[in-house]
């Protein structure tokens, strides 16, 4: 249930101070640009969260990470999620050419990062995200009037 809370706060553009929110914005703008499904964003965030949470116990934790590390990580997560879910995933160089990225990475670097993320996640990609529930709730008429914010993104 932690995940659901996280998404409520962060999926909708909120304060862009924390780096994680920036990623999320990246992911969302990616989504509209490449016309991918919303499930992709949720899955990408899930992978990102899991990857970070698996690293946080070690001594030098993510507070010491540089921005480009997070950026590379989020590109990799996004790319994995889009390939897992969407029928027509964007190419790596398309993701890389987004104007709001601060760095650009070589395709081979992104591929290696993807592999590391997949390994760390133990290749378990089919996860239950908040989005899985959203789809369920949105199509329940009695609940619809209570879900105002969700209507904005209701083009599943």
């Amino acid at each position, binding site marked *: 249930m932690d995940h659901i809370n996280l998404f409520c706060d962060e999926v909708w553009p909120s304060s862009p101070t924390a780096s994680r929110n920036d990623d999320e914005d990246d992911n969302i703008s990616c989504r509209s640009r490449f016309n991918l499904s919303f499930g992709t964003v949720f899955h990408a965030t899930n992978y990102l969260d899991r990857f970070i949470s*698996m690293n946080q116990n*070690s001594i030098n934790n993510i507070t010491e990470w540089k921005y*480009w590390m997070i950026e590379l990580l989020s590109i990799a997560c996004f790319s994995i999620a889009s390939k897992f879910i969407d029928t027509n995933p964007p190419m790596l160089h398309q993701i890389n050419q987004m104007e709001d990225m601060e760095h650009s*990475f070589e395709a081979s670097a992104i591929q290696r*990062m993807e592999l590391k993320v997949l*390994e760390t996640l133990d*290749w378990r990609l089919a996860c239950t995200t908040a989005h899985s529930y959203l789809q369920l709730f949105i199509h329940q008429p009695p609940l619809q009037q209570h879900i105002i914010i969700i209507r904005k993104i209701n083009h599943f």
Partner: protein
Amino acid sequence: MDFRDKFKQLDLGIGTSLSRRPIFKYLDKETGKTIALKRIILRHELLQALPLTGSSNSRQEQPIDVGIPANTIRQISLYRILDHPNIASLEYLGNDPGDHFVRLGFEYVGVDLRKFQKDNAIRSRHPKLIKSLMYQLLSGIAYYHSVNASHGNINPTNVLISNYGDDNNDDEQVNLLITNLDLCVQPSYQAPEILLESNRLSTAVDMFSAGCIFGEMLIGKPVFDTENELGSIFKLLGTPTKQTMRGVIDLDEKLKKYQKHSPKDLSETFIGVEPAGIDLLSKLLCLNPKERIMASEALKHRYFYGIEAKKRVPTPAAAAAAEVGNSSVGPFAAEVGSSSAGPSAAMDSLAAGTSAVVGSPAASASVLVESWIDMVSAALDSSEN
């Protein structure tokens, strides 16, 4: 741990893969389990050097510059969650140091179906044994379908038979496992809609392959020809018309080169098989994928009456229910936060992963990367002590 340290190659190969490499069995030195190794290639320059045959057709459209192929990601994450007594489990997953390919080690017990039939010519024709094996095969397929996946490559080399032998005459005890190695196999066991290059494939392709295997078990040799696969399918089952294969494919062009046949009576080809078996076979070998029997229905077919109670194989419905109970809402369920890799392993992998990073100003970026790796390895050292 390095792959070579963990596993010992067993002397005999089990066949040739689609990429023309022999596939070997390996022995896990710790657990004593035998695995068969399959490699999935990640580098595109290597991918393109491969001959495009059989099920690897899809690689043709794989554009360069996509990172890890989408197929690979989907396949492996599917293998990760499969858990069924009739499906070979994924025992080992690792990549080589250069990240050129991923190694998948599948559980390998007994022998494959073709070898089993060759070595036990009389026993393998035993009706009771066939019934038991078919039930297990269909259970495995039904499980695949219950998680919204299809195997796509069911053939005798992917079906393993174990727990048989001179001292074990109980047909009910013989075990069947479905694995997924890309071995070359002749003839193909693919459904006619694949051979006709239809773009609307479904889980029904597995059922046709299961039908081919069923037929092969009944008569002791492959049902269809090696050379002219589609032609021999039509010879037995009749040439499809617009009525029998409606909506599947535009037939006129593709059928020009095939002779017209009318469907044969299956009981003439499969002599001495009980009527229920013929009925099931005809439903499995149905030309139209939309009318072909589904795996879960096939398990309830009257051919299997009496076998269900004895076999303690969980029904796919029960397996699927367990799956749902765990965590499923999405297409197939998996745990959200598996934590088998420890934090240090994760850190290690992150270091390796970013060592190839090129930032915008190349020089400063490489310094950054170096320092990060130093930091990470320092953390690793202290966590080990």
